[in-house]
Structures are given as structure tokens and as C-alpha cells.
């Protein structure tokens, strides 16, 4: 897959492996942490891993659309953060904490 040792050129493979590792760290952090703010940051990590994948494919395939799609991902991330942080503020006003496990009113 990749030759070990110091490479002369960085191919798309390196970027894709880095993005896979970053995505995994974000996913594990999302499952492990219980502070909702930190969970949101982990979602940002996962979105950035997806962006890195798009941009590295744009270079590997010599195709501009990979970079265009990053902008749409950015818009979705911005909208998600705006609405999500508003929800967190609303939860905090009502319950005085933002631990995810405490918001279990709908649990069966």
C-alpha cells in the first residue's frame, strides 16, 4: 500500500489515510465524551476529515467538483453549529447542565 521510509512524493493515499484516522478519532470522541459541546467539536473533526478526503480526491482526479463540494459541507457545518449551539443554550437554561446523558426525558 505505502512504502515505508521517507517518501519523495506525497500521494493521495497519505491524505486519505490521515482523513480516515481523523474521522475515527472524531467518531470515537463523539461516542466517549458526554459534554455536548465537546461532542459538537468531534462532529466538526469528522466533517473536516470528509473535507480533506474531498480535496485530496479533487487533486488526484484533477477535478474541480471536489473543491466545490467542500463549500456545501462548510455551509452544512455552519448551519449545524448555529442550530446545535442554540439547542445547547436552550437545554442549559432549563437544566443548568449540558451533559448528554441527563437529557433522557424521552427514554422509554
Amino acid at each position, binding site marked *: 500500500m505505502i512504502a515505508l521510509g521517507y517518501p519523495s*512524493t506525497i500521494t493521495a493515499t497519505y491524505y486519505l489515510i490521515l482523513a480516515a484516522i481523523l474521522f475515527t478519532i472524531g467518531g470515537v470522541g463523539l461516542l466517549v465524551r458526554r459534554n455536548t459541546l465537546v461532542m459538537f467539536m468531534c462532529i466538526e473533526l469528522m466533517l473536516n476529515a470528509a473535507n480533506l478526503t474531498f480535496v485530496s480526491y479533487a487533486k488526484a482526479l484533477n477535478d474541480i467538483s471536489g473543491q466545490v463540494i467542500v463549500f456545501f459541507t462548510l455551509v452544512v457545518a455552519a448551519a449545524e453549529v448555529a442550530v446545535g449551539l442554540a439547542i445547547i443554550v436552550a437545554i442549559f437554561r432549563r437544566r443548568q447542565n449540558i451533559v448528554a446523558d441527563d437529557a433522557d426525558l424521552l427514554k422509554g
Partner: protein
Amino acid sequence: MEAAVFFVCAALVLTGAFGVVLSRNPVHSALFLLLTLASIAVLFLELNAGLVAAVQIVVYASAIVVLFLFVITLLGVDQHESLDEPQPFQRIAAIVFGALVLISILALAHGNRWVTGAHSTRGQLDVARTGNVQRLAESLFTNFVWAFEMTAVLLVIAVVGGVVLARRSGHRPQVPAGGEAGA
């Protein structure tokens, strides 16, 4: 040189990512997130994506991180996150699950080529005498114009939703009965 830049930035990206997950204090998590985002912007520059790198700095590393820090200071989040798990197996299960995801991604790619498919179906990345910004704009306003309009709708919905959520929760002002119909 290219390899050196890549490995330094990759190390910074992973350091920041681990810092986000492992920091006890949410403020430290936000600052580690800033480190990761800035390093990814450098990687974007390395990948001939100048405009995307600039937008990454302006939107992500400035606006979103500042928004996180603002909410942290607004809420005055206490620093200690209780470590006793309601489900003790959850943390181990999460780590095992993450390792499985990573191994399966890498194994799936190991037997195959990482990059397949047709090249330059939506326009080339490198064209002589046109910059990255011009190539992006041409593609965004021709091939992706419908999606571009939809992002405007999405942003409006998000702004309205954010205002409504932040405003109407918690202590609502004393309103005479029947005054809060609608919305």
C-alpha cells in the same frame, strides 16, 4: 519539502484531534480544535486548494471556533465532567467500534486502488492561466448552481431556527393569555 510539510501538518492534525477528545476542559478542546483546523488549512494549500484553505481559516478557524468559545463562556461550563459511566461498557465498546471502523476502511482500500473513476468530469483543476478561484466560481455557478441556491435556503432556515430556539426557551416574558399563538 512537500513530504516534510505533510508529516508536520499531519502530526499537528492528530495532536489537535486527540487533544479535542482527551481534554478535560472544554476551552482546551476548542483551542485544540483550532490547531487541527489550521493544520488542515495548510494541507489544503498543499493540495492546490487555495480558496478552500482561505475559507477554512475564515469560516472554521475563526467563526466556528469563536462561536464555540462564546457559548462556553456564556454557559460558564463547569470543568469537571463526571467520569462515572452509567453504562460502564460504553467507553470500551466505543473504542473497539472505532478501531473496527478504521481497520475496515484501511482493509477495504488495501486490496483496491485508492483512486479510481473518470478524471475531470466536471472541469479540470489545473488549467493554464486561470486561477483556483476562477475555476471554482465557474463550476459553482454553472454545474452546481441549484445546490448553491439550496444552501441559501438552508442558511436562512438555520438562522431563523437558531433565533427561535435561543429566544423562546427558558424564562419567557410575561405575556397575557392568548398572546403567544403562532410561531
